[in-house]
């Protein structure tokens, strides 16, 4: 018992910082690049905007390739790319590169789905007013998709927490890694239990906040 507390005391703060770092970097990456790619996927599939089978096909295929790889494999495949970007392939920041790419692809599909759920008639009415595409994207598409986008971001957050446990494979650290290193490899069941509880609380809290915000933006 005392050993458990000792390990938690000495390792947990560092692990939390690492997890926080990884989650924050990949959430920001997903929110920006994922939204953009999701938007491109939608605009090129909707005849009311710029339907383009070639662009849509290319973007869709790239997203599918990334999403079809198990995350642990993606980390390994991306090692050379990670070296180019951050100079090293080890550590929380390095792990964030592959984590970001996986989250971008994941979130992009969810964003595309959120946009395609927007009532076609509303977009059509906006087109009929003579509005520019950029105005329609800003004032109609994003406004109508906001609750769905927030929910998508919440789902992505939960997935990133899950993926980040695998970051240990490249020395990324984090709470999940703590569980594997001590809880599993060194038979410290207390540590395992503690980290699991912490992860449950983080996920529950994230989901709860996400739902609350999404609800606040729902006007139906």
């Amino acid at each position, binding site marked *: 018992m005392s050993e458990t507390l000792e390990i938690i005391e000495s390792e947990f703060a560092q692990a939390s910082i690492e997890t926080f770092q990884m989650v924050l970097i990949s959430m920001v990456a997903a929110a920006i690049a994922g939204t953009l790619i999701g938007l491109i996927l939608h605009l090129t599939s909707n005849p009311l905007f710029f339907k383009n089978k070639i662009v849509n096909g290319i973007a869709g295929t790239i997203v599918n390739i990334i999403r079809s790889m198990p995350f642990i494999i993606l980390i390994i495949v991306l090692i050379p790319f990670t070296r180019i970007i951050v100079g090293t392939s080890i550590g929380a920041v390095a792990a964030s590169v592959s984590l970001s790419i996986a989250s971008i692809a994941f979130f992009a599909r969810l964003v595309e789905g959120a946009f395609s759920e927007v009532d076609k*008639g*509303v977009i059509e*009415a906006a087109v009929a*007013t*003579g509005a520019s595409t950029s105005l329609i994207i800003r004032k109609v598409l994003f*406004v*109508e998709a906001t609750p769905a986008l927030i929910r998508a971001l919440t789902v992505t957050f939960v997935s990133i927490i899950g993926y980040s446990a695998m970051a240990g494979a490249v020395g990324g650290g984090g709470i999940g890694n703590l569980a594997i290193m001590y809880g599993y490899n060194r038979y410290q069941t207390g540590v395992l239990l503690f980290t699991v509880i912490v992860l449950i609380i983080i996920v529950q809290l994230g989901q709860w906040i996400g739902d609350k915000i999404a609800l606040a933006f729902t*006007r*139906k």
Partner: protein
Amino acid sequence: MIELKNIDVIFQQNKHDFKAVNNVSLKIKKGEIFGIVGPSGAGKSTLVRVINLLQRPSRGQVFIEGQEITNLNRKELRKVRLNIGMIFQHFNLISGSTIAENVAFSLYANNYPKDKIPGRVKELLELVHLPEKADAYPANLSGGQKQRVAIARALANNPEILLCDEATSALDLENTEEIVALLKEINEKTKITIVFITHEMEVAKKLFDRIAFMEQGELKEVTDIYTAFTEPKEAISKSLVERVLNVNVPEALVVKEDETLLRLSYTGDDSYDPVISMASKNYDITVDIINGKIDYIHNKPFGVLILILRGEDEERAKALEYIQKNVYKLERLGGK
């Protein structure tokens, strides 16, 4: 003025070509309320969407105020659309924006000066009698109110044309009448040209100046609204009009030896003349009214009566002759 020339719209359905609109040519005058009616699937919604090119025709040209718009680029087309408002069956308001923001959307589209937007929105909401709802969301409004917001949005840039695609079809009777009255009021005030698609003949009767009957992608008949109801020519027009007047002979009726069954149609001024009472007074006959209806189209009465004349052959013949002279149309349905 709106002019459609030889419009075809062809949809591909499971590798089959389906002609939703078939060689339609049409001129709609400035300032009139022009209606297109027909059964569902007739292609009327597709046709009205061709006017602002929400639907590109497969063949043919569209002219707005003399300008051909079918060959314009994206930017030029947007400019034309600023001059054509449109409202829809399901209102199509932005559910996540307030009523004021929904109306302001059209003004943003027109690069309206930012500082003048709140004032203009207020003016438009007053025009549609909804000033108190500016900060509400569409979900908190009734169907009729939502359609009024959609009208405010459509009129924001003072367009010369308003397209209405089944604009009252999702509304109850009360809200329908409210929207019809509002559109009439706006048409009178601003001389805006209104093109209205509907399958509701009651709306047609109250609102339209001219009407086009459409069936299977083709325009069958185009005429003024009064003529459409009094003298429909095509089969489709007749069937739609009859449903409104709905004056039929009861099935169980048996016409006796000394009786004549008649259908009288009244129009215009002669509706007010007491033809029937005069006939029964001057000739030795009795008159039974079996069924009847008098309707008003643009304040001009139009009536249909089903009568039985009873009496001696000679008197009946004289009475018939008298009635014939004094009504718009007389049909003998049975008896001698």
